[in-house]
């Protein structure tokens, strides 16, 4: 006998099947994240509470906060501060360059727009390391600037191995990460709102400040995060262009896992940075949602 079609809860079975299908679709990514993100993160977390033996081996035999205590060392503070500044300036410079450019792209007609976007992405087609080494030549004393100054009879001018070189390298490397979210935000902007502002007696600049800028804030925040976070912990660029003179966070952490043989310290530093970023993000999200 067939069940009556009006039985309460009839739709439950179909909904459960729907949920199962959804879960299966997400499963590969889910497994990947657990294996390659959650598990390593857990190992780093545990290691940060481990102990470094006199010989540099990592001992998991007791719960130790000594790595965290070591973070209070003024040297660590200096390194964090220096990295913070480099990342802040990199983000600011990227924003300054990227906003007008993203605005330009977003206001072109579609064909031009797509061509410009491809241009932004072209650097991704070649290896990051190779591109950074190219900068090493450009900024070095054999590079164009060096040759020119030498031809003028002066000491060959060299930017390589200075903080400025790191900055140039970081801005170069991360600029597309600023351009793309900004472009997306500006492209989504309802231009009638800008017209409305102009109609209500705002001049072009004021309309930009009062309407365009606040309404593309999501792009500014996303882009800034995408640039700031990797700049803060950057390793490759400072290592190649900075000459390892002024130590930055990335190199310092790598050193702890390598030569210094102090994995707990490297782990603890990584955990703290991650926690700080997370808290900053949460504060930003909470205040950002209420404001404007």
């Amino acid at each position, binding site marked *: 006998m067939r069940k009556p079609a009006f039985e309460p809860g009839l739709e439950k079975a179909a909904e459960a099947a729907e949920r199962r299908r959804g879960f299966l679709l997400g499963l590969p990514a889910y497994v990947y994240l657990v294996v390659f993100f959650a598990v390593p993160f857990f190992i780093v977390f545990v290691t940060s509470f481990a102990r470094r033996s006199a010989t540099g081996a990592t001992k998991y035999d007791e719960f130790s906060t000594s790595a965290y205590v070591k973070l209070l060392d003024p040297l660590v503070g200096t390194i964090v501060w220096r990295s913070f500044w480099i990342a802040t300036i990199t983000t600011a410079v990227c924003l300054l360059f990227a906003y007008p450019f993203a605005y330009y792209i977003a206001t072109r007609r579609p064909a031009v727009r797509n061509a410009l976007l491809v241009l932004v992405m072209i650097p991704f087609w070649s290896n990051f390391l190779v591109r950074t080494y190219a900068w090493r030549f450009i900024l070095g004393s054999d590079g164009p600037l060096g040759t020119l100054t030498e031809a003028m009879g002066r000491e060959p001018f060299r930017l390589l191995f200075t903080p400025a070189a790191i900055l140039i390298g970081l801005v170069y490397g991360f600029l597309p990460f600023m351009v793309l979210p900004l472009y997306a935000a500006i492209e989504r902007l*309802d231009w*009638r*709102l800008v*017209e*409305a*502002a*102009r*109609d*209500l*007696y*705002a*001049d*072009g600049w*004021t309309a930009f400040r*009062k*309407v365009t800028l*606040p*309404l593309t804030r999501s792009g500014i925040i996303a882009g800034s995060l995408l640039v700031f976070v990797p700049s803060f912990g950057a390793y490759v660029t400072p290592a190649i262009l900075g000459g390892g003179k002024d130590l930055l966070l990335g190199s310092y952490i790598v050193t702890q896992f390598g030569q210094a043989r102090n994995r707990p310290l490297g782990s603890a530093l990584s955990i703290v940075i991650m926690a700080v970023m997370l808290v900053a993000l949460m504060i930003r999200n909470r205040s950002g949602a209420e404001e*404007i």
Partner: protein
Amino acid sequence: MTKAAVELSGVTKHFGEVVALKGIDLAIADGEFFSLLGPSGCGKTTTLRLIAGFEFPTSGSIQIHGKEMALEPPDARPINTVFQSYALFPHMNVERNVGFGLQMKKVNSNEIATRVGRALDMVQLSHRANAKPDQLSGGMQQRVALARALVNEPEVLLLDEPLGALDLKLRQQMQIELKELQERVGITFIYVTHDQEEALTMSDRIGVMDKGELLQVGTPKEIYESPTSRFVADFIGDISLLAVSVVSPTEVRLSGGGNVPADTSNAGDGSHWLALRPESLHLVSAAADVPDGMVRIPGKVRHRVYYGDSYFYDVETTAGSLDVRQENRPGLPTFDAGTELMVWWNPAAGSLVTA
């Protein structure tokens, strides 16, 4: 006519290859409720955007109260706009939206507060002053947009299909409110719409546009009852068009033969039609029932549609088919499909149109 609030002369607008406006001459009087009516793509919105300053004309002059403004930016014009989509600032609450224009004009904050309060009172939204636009219904957003424009006491208010997004009931209510408001504040309204009923009920004058041209300007009565072109006749309301040829200043010949009286004094060059409104046509069963001095033509009912308050007949005649609307009133005869009958009309009710 007093000094024109807005005067366009020889205004053209090209977008690349596309000619959006082919030379508009139009003077809109101070305090007038003027509608620009036409199908989408006719150039009415382009005209409005040129007056607002969002676009600049390819050629021609745009004067606002006698001052040449064709190339001035929007913020330099004593004009405000109510946008089709309302274009309320989503990141500001109602109060700040409404106060935006005054803030830009550097009015002091006390006065802004007073005037914004008054404007919100006027549109009955004082209780939602702190709401964000997305928390309001379409009708409320519409009223905020209106308050945001009117609070600046502009010399001219431009309205771009402001009621288009509202449902029928609300739209009819807002039509009345808008018209009352305009009479009270005495500001010149330039109203863009594709809805002929809206234009007819609200406007002092209407300009009908098609394909970048202003075809006819007149009062709603003139536009409805005395269209001069086939397009205007056809665009506004139901109308039957009979192909005719002009035979004398007072007579035309129908395509099926037979002359009927019609005023042909305004007939231009081109093909001519006699335009007849459904409500000015009458049906009787025999020629004997037609009053003296009326035009009559025999016909046969093809369809009859019941509209509640009226019957709508499609009548076939030798001159062409005629749409006839007859009131549904006790005592008035009705006719079934297939019935042979007489159609008659007052010669003054027909207009001769040209295409």
